[in-house]
């Protein structure tokens, strides 16, 4: 038997509940009658008489209450109801779920729209080269792998390890000289040892403000693309299709202009990729030659920050030089920095 706790020790908010609760017997029918207020207190089980009386009184009071009309509130309800537009009724079980479902759908639609706007804005910024330099570089590099040419950020340095990396970054402002009409214009870094300047199909597509892609081919012949150049018009506002360096053919026999650069030893190795993957700008072709007279593989890198301005070997910048080889014209565009040749 549960020991009786003195009343003085009971919490005030639980007076003696333990004494009665476990000793009362209450069946469902009786309980329902009590809750309805229909059980006469005299018929209630022992110990529940007064509860039955109280519940009966509550029931009587509930049934006898006749609330007064509230015209103001009812009018307000009518106005509120008419303001809702009265859509088609739905089952009561769905009423509470609708608002949350609507919120979720609205949130998803809003998120999709915001994402589309941000995506479009970012794409536009990337296409115009307006993104911050690191971001632009990354985007440009990534998209180049999928064949999309996006301008790389302007070069801020010209030399990497062991490379002069004369990066052409200002195509629109670079003085281009001595370009024969109808001949190809190439920005070239001439390798030493008599390596011919490399001619590049011109104009090389660039975007305004971006660097000029140039190709340096060492040992490779100047290639001409008659008809693709229009005088000395700077290669500006061109689309950014990747430019394939021409297949090396015969080395040029003549070279009208020597670069005033310090030259380099590039003739032997013929690697014009120039050590530094200087970010020369938009579309860059790098070519490998096989030294003087030799031919080498020609590779094209488009739009990445691996872009090499070509002819990095020994391009000291300083002044524009023009070399003609064959029917093409090679133009060296100074980039200011003029890193030393490797």
């Amino acid at each position, binding site marked *: 038997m549960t020991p009786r706790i003195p009343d003085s020790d009971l919490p005030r908010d639980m007076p003696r509940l333990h004494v009665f609760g476990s000793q009362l017997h209450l069946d469902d029918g009786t309980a329902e009658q009590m809750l309805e207020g229909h059980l006469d207190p005299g018929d209630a089980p022992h110990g529940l008489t007064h509860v039955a009386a109280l519940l009966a009184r509550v029931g009587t009071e509930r049934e006898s209450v006749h609330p007064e009309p509230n015209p103001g509130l009812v009018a*307000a309800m009518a106005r509120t109801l008419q303001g809702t537009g009265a859509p088609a009724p739905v*089952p009561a079980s769905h009423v509470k779920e609708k608002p949350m479902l609507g919120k979720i759908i609205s949130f998803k639609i809003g998120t999709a729209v915001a994402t589309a706007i941000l995506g479009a804005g970012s794409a536009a910024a990337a296409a115009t080269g307006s993104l911050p330099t690191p971001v632009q570089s990354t985007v440009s590099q990534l998209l180049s792998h999928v064949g999309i040419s996006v301008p790389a950020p302007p070069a801020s340095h010209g030399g990497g390890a062991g490379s002069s990396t004369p990066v052409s970054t200002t195509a629109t402002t670079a003085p281009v000289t001595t370009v024969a009409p109808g001949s190809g214009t190439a920005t070239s870094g001439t390798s030493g040892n008599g390596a011919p300047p490399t001619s590049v199909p011109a104009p090389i597509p660039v975007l305004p403000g971006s660097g000029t892609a140039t190709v340096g081919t060492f040992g490779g012949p100047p290639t001409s693309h008659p008809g693709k150049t229009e005088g000395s018009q700077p290669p500006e506002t061109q689309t950014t299709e990747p430019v394939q360096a021409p297949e090396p053919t015969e080395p040029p026999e003549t070279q009208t202009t020597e670069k005033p650069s310090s030259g380099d030893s590039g003739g032997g190795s013929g690697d014009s990729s120039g050590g530094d993957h200087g970010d020369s700008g938009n579309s860059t072709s790098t070519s490998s030659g096989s030294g003087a007279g030799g031919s080498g593989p020609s590779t094209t890198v488009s739009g990445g920050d691996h872009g090499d301005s070509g002819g990095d070997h020994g391009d000291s910048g300083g002044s524009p030089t023009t070399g003609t080889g064959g029917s093409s014209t090679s133009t060296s565009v100074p980039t200011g920095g003029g890193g030393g040749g490797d």
Partner: protein
Amino acid sequence: MDEGSDFSEVLRAAQGGNQEAIGVLYLRLSGRVLGYLRAHVGQDAEDVASEVWLSVARSLPRFAGGESDFRCWVFTIARRRVVDWLRAAPWYQVTALSDRSDDMVDPVTDTAGEVVERFAAQDTLARLADYLPEEQARVLILRVVAGLSTEEVARVVEKKEGAVRMLLHRAIKNLAPLAEELFEISSEDT
């Protein structure tokens, strides 16, 4: 159109904006709603009741169901408004309601006559229920003061009917000593 009209007709008219029909729906439940709210929020019951009925009006066009469904729906809204009120109320307001600082029914010292005189039976029950565990008090008020059936209470509190029935049994048993003592004191006084 009066309180004896068919519920579906009244509902349809009310959903169409008929003010008279809206008034009929209001009169059918307003007393129970107010009693339920008085048991939970005390003197703010009138204000909360207005919020409840305006919420009902806002959602009424989307409601579909019978009279029992309507009762459950209205008291579900009322229950949510009570929760909102408890959340928004200052702590001292809730504490005062819980402690019954000024109008507290003390089953030990107050005589039944005084209690009955000072409070209506509904209020007396509500204040006694305040000594019960929260779930028991909640279902007891809905069952007795609001006059919902056990099945309807289960729908409102989102519990199974059997669980509600068990809570009600326990509530009655726990009320017994309170009411017993209340009436014993009353009889001794007389």
